[in-house]
């Protein structure tokens, strides 16, 4: 499996789409986590991200102490959607380009080729988390220095917890995207369906379950995005020092239950994808 993993990493490293998606995730995380809130604080100008919030609370959310919740705040929704697109691209394009056939006619078994791909996706997901945290550290340090605030970084344990949680969330979304790619053996349909699911269907179900039809609450608590949001909530209940949780960060289930649910999703996506790849003919 090392050969397959190494082949996947080479492909990902040299694929422009990888860097475009990582760049967009970082850009959006910095924009909504630091640039807009700090601009609002600095200019005393309220925007849609900070309306009705205490300015000191808004500033606190951009300081190093809040690095983990602020960075992970976008993971359940927009960063998740982008990583899902990444997973769908990685799995689906191998069908469109006929490269799956090339890989499967070398030496490794189908399972090893598949395992290498999943490991590479998980590694990429970890990379996205680390790059985002690094970018957040730079932004929060800069703001703290400008505002003459202490550089109180999160404790190692909190940081490790944040990395682990972020990795689990990103791997789950990447796995979801990959499963869609393996299911539909293409790119466009999985990307479309995945994004609609993350940004549309989950929000609709959540909205209906919390207002119109509360009987749907148990179903809502099973959704991958809701569990991702709950895990981030558990890291900083109530939205942390910023005082307001980003969209998708919700108090639906406990952190430990969300962790188990997300781990089960990762496992289920992996097993379902393997079953599809092992069972089907490659034409």
């Amino acid at each position, binding site marked *: 499996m090392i050969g397959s993993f190494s*082949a996947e990493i080479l492909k990902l490293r040299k694929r422009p789409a990888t860097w475009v998606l990582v760049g967009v995730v970082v850009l959006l995380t910095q924009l909504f986590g630091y640039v807009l809130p700090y601009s609002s604080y600095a200019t005393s100008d309220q925007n849609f991200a900070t309306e009705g919030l205490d300015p000191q609370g808004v500033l606190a959310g951009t300081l190093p102490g809040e690095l983990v919740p602020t960075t992970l705040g976008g993971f359940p929704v927009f960063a998740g959607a982008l990583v899902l697109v990444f997973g769908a691209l990685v799995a689906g394009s191998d069908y469109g380009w006929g490269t799956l056939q090339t890989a499967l006619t*070398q*030496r490794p078994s189908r399972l090893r080729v598949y395992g290498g791909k999943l490991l590479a996706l998980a590694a990429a997901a970890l990379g996205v988390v680390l790059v985002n945290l690094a970018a957040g550290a730079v932004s929060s340090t800069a703001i703290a220095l400008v505002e003459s605030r202490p550089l109180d970084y999160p404790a190692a344990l909190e940081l490790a917890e944040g990395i682990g949680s972020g990795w689990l969330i990103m791997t789950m979304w990447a796995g979801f995207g990959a499963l869609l790619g393996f299911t539909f053996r293409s790119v466009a349909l999985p990307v479309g369906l995945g994004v609609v699911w993350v940004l549309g269907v989950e929000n609709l179900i959540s909205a209906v379950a919390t207002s119109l039809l509360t009987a749907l609450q148990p179903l809502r608590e099973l959704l991958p995005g809701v569990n991702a949001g709950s895990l981030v909530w558990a890291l900083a209940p109530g939205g942390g020092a910023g005082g307001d949780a980003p969209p998708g960060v919700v108090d639906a289930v406990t952190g430990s239950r969300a962790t188990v649910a997300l781990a089960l999703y990762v496992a289920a996506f992996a097993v379902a994808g393997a079953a599809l790849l092992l069972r089907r003919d490659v034409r």
Partner: protein
Amino acid sequence: MSEHEHLVQTRDLTKVYGGRITAVNRVALSVRRGEVYGFLGPNGAGKTTTLRMLVGLVRPTAGSATVLGKPPGHPEALARTGVLIESPGFYPYLSGRDNLRVVARYAGVAGGRVDDVLEQASLSDRAGDRYAGYSLGMKQRLGVAAALLKDPELLVLDEPTNGLDPAGMRDMRALIRELGSRGHTVLLSSHLLGEVQQVCDRVGVISRGALIAESTVAELRGEAGLLVAAEPLELARAAAEELLGAENVAVVDGTLRLRTDPAYAGKVSTALVQAGSTLTELRPLERTLEEAFLEMTGAEEAGR
């Protein structure tokens, strides 16, 4: 049969899609070690599906196959098999060299081998260019380079000259002949009869999913003979029958068809002239593989 005699062997290999479409029907073919085997058939005859089954991409509905003594798709067999099926599958955003590096990592082959096969496929000059910018012929050559990466005992090449210009086709045939002469076993599918006739030792002919013949190219083309046009015909016929026996002489469209080695042309000529005939035409009579193929597939069609 042992692996040493037959690198590829199938028995009643069958593929039915959706329970209705029989793409391959009870094919039994055998590829011997060291030969260049031509898998011949019209488009849609089932060649590619058969090859896909042999490398484990498609699972047979019925029947069995062994490749290098293992079931199709077995890692040990794949490690010794170079494969190019239909159009090559590569990453458009990677260079030719990087694409081969990816394939080498999957195959567990040292990266240093990449430049060797690029050289062999005459792609060294363009190895750093993106695959997306390659011509059809260059893509095909990169596919062959990838198939050679493992320095495989068995090469499975599906229409390798597709998209190549005449010079490229000539080079590809030369490469296949060279591989054959170096001891590689090649299973080459093609619908180009001339190509098969030029490079293959033995041929399997597939039509509508069924293998309808398997033999050497010479056997498929049938016995050679001589065509003689002479006057008077009856005098010439009598002389020919006396020389070769009546069973080896036939009159077709006002000419004599003699079942004999074309090397006997001189003796035939002398005998007929001595008998008082005037020869107006005397030439070897050989079926081309195309004639044999059309005859076989035509008979197969008519039999349905």
